[in-house]
C-alpha cells in the first residue's frame, strides 16, 4: 500500500479530500478489502479516542450488516436532474420567451398574408364580380372594388412593424405587456387586413381610393 493512497484515505475519512479524488477512492474502497480494513481501524481509533466504543470495539456489527445487505436487492436511485440543468433552463427561459413571441408574430403575419391575397386575387382576376361581403353591391361599386396595391401594402406593413416591435421588445417586456401588445396587434390586423372578408369599412376605403383617380 503506498503512502499517498493511505494519506488520501485518511483525508477521505475526515471528509477533507477533494471531491474528484473522493470519487476515485470511493470506487477503490468499495472493492479493496484491505483498504476497507484500514478504514475500519481508523474508525476504531477515533472511537477509542472519543471513548465511543462502548463494550465492543471488536464488534461484528459491520459483518452482520454486510451479510444482511447481501440478501437485499441492489438499490439503484433514479437519476437526479443536475442543478446545472435547472440553471441552464433558467438561462434559456428568456430566449424561449422571445422565440414564442417571434412565432406568434410570424403566425400573425402569415395569417394576414393568408387572409389578404384572395381579395386581391379575386378582385384583380374577376373585376366587377362581387366577392363574399360584396354580394348584392351595385355593378358600379363592384367595379370600383379593385384593391389598389397601396391598400394591400397598408394592411401588411403596420403588422410587420408591430411584429418587429414585439420581437425586439419582448425580451424586455413582461408576459402581460407582451400579451397586451399582441392583442393590440391582432386587433389592428382585424381592423385592416382581416376586414375585407367580413366588414364594410374596406369597401369604403376602396371606394374612396377608387374614386380619387376618377
Amino acid at each position, binding site marked *: 500500500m503506498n503512502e499517498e493512497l*493511505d*494519506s488520501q484515505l*485518511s*483525508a*477521505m*475519512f*475526515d*471528509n*477533507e*479530500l*477533494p*471531491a474528484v479524488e*473522493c*470519487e476515485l*477512492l*470511493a*470506487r477503490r*474502497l*468499495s*472493492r479493496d478489502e484491505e483498504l*476497507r*480494513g*484500514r*478504514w*475500519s*481501524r*481508523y*474508525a*476504531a*481509533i*477515533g*472511537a*477509542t*479516542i*472519543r471513548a*465511543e*466504543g*462502548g*463494550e*465492543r*470495539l*471488536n*464488534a*461484528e*456489527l*459491520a*459483518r*452482520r*450488516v*454486510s451479510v*444482511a*445487505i*447481501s440478501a*437485499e436487492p*441492489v*438499490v*439503484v*436511485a*433514479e437519476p*437526479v436532474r443536475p442543478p446545472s440543468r435547472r440553471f441552464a433552463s433558467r438561462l434559456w427561459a428568456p430566449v424561449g420567451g422571445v422565440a414564442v413571441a417571434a412565432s406568434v408574430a410570424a403566425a400573425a403575419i402569415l395569417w394576414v398574408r393568408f387572409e389578404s391575397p384572395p381579395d386581391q386575387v379575386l378582385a384583380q382576376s374577376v373585376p366587377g364580380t362581387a366577392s363574399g361581403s360584396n354580394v348584392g353591391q351595385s355593378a358600379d361599386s363592384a367595379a370600383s372594388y379593385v384593391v389598389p396595391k397601396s391598400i394591400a401594402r397598408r394592411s401588411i406593413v403596420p403588422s410587420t412593424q408591430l411584429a418587429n416591435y414585439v420581437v425586439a421588445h419582448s425580451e424586455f417586456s413582461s408576459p402581460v405587456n407582451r400579451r397586451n401588445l399582441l392583442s393590440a396587434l391582432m386587433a389592428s390586423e382585424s381592423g385592416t387586413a382581416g376586414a375585407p372578408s367580413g366588414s364594410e369599412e374596406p369597401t369604403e376605403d376602396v371606394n374612396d381610393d377608387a374614386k380619387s383617380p376618377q
Partner: protein
Amino acid sequence: MSADVSDLSLVRRVQSGDKGAFDALVRKYQHKLVKLVMRYVRNPAEAEDIAQEAFIKAYRALPQFRGDSAFYTWLYRIAINTAKNAVVSRDRSPIEYNIDRNDATEESYDMQGRMKDSETPEGLVLTDEIRRTVNAAIEALPEDLKTAIVLRELDGLSYEEIAAAMDCPVGTVRSRIFRAREAIDHRLREVFEGGLGRTEDLG
C-alpha cells in the same frame, strides 16, 4: 471543502448498485451509531441489533436520499427512530416468566447465540487490548501528531481549523493526522496479528 463530500461519494456509489460502498459507510459509523443507540437501551447486544436494523433501513431508503443533509445526520435520524420504536415495542411485549424446563436449555443456547464477541472473555480481552494499545500509541506520538489527531477526533475540528489552531498549513495538518493514524494503526495490527489473530473482527 464540503463537510460530507467523501460520504456522498460512497452514497452515490451505493445508489448506483455498489454494496461494498455501503459496507465502508457502516464501518465508518458503526461505533457512533451504537453509542447513539446506547442512550436508549442499556444492553450492548440490543444496541447492536438496533444499529443493525437502522443500517438496513438506511440501505433500503438510500435511493430516496438526495444529499440535502449530511449522510450521518440522515442516518442519525433513522437510528433514533428505530431505537425509539424498539423501546416502545419492547415495553408493549409481555414478559414471560414461566420458562419451561425443556425450553430453558434452548433459551440458554439462544442467549449464547445472542452474546457477541465482546461479551465473551476473549472479546472483552480484545476490546481492552485495543483500548490500551490505541491509548498507548497516542501517548507515544510526537506532540504535534498527538495534538492534530486529538483535535480532529475528539474536538471534531476541520483541517482548516486545526491549521489555524496549530499555526501551520492545511497540508501539514493532513500529513500529521495521517502519520498519527499510521503509527496507531501499526500498533493495532500487531495486536491482532500477534496476540489474538482476529484483525477482521474490527470490520
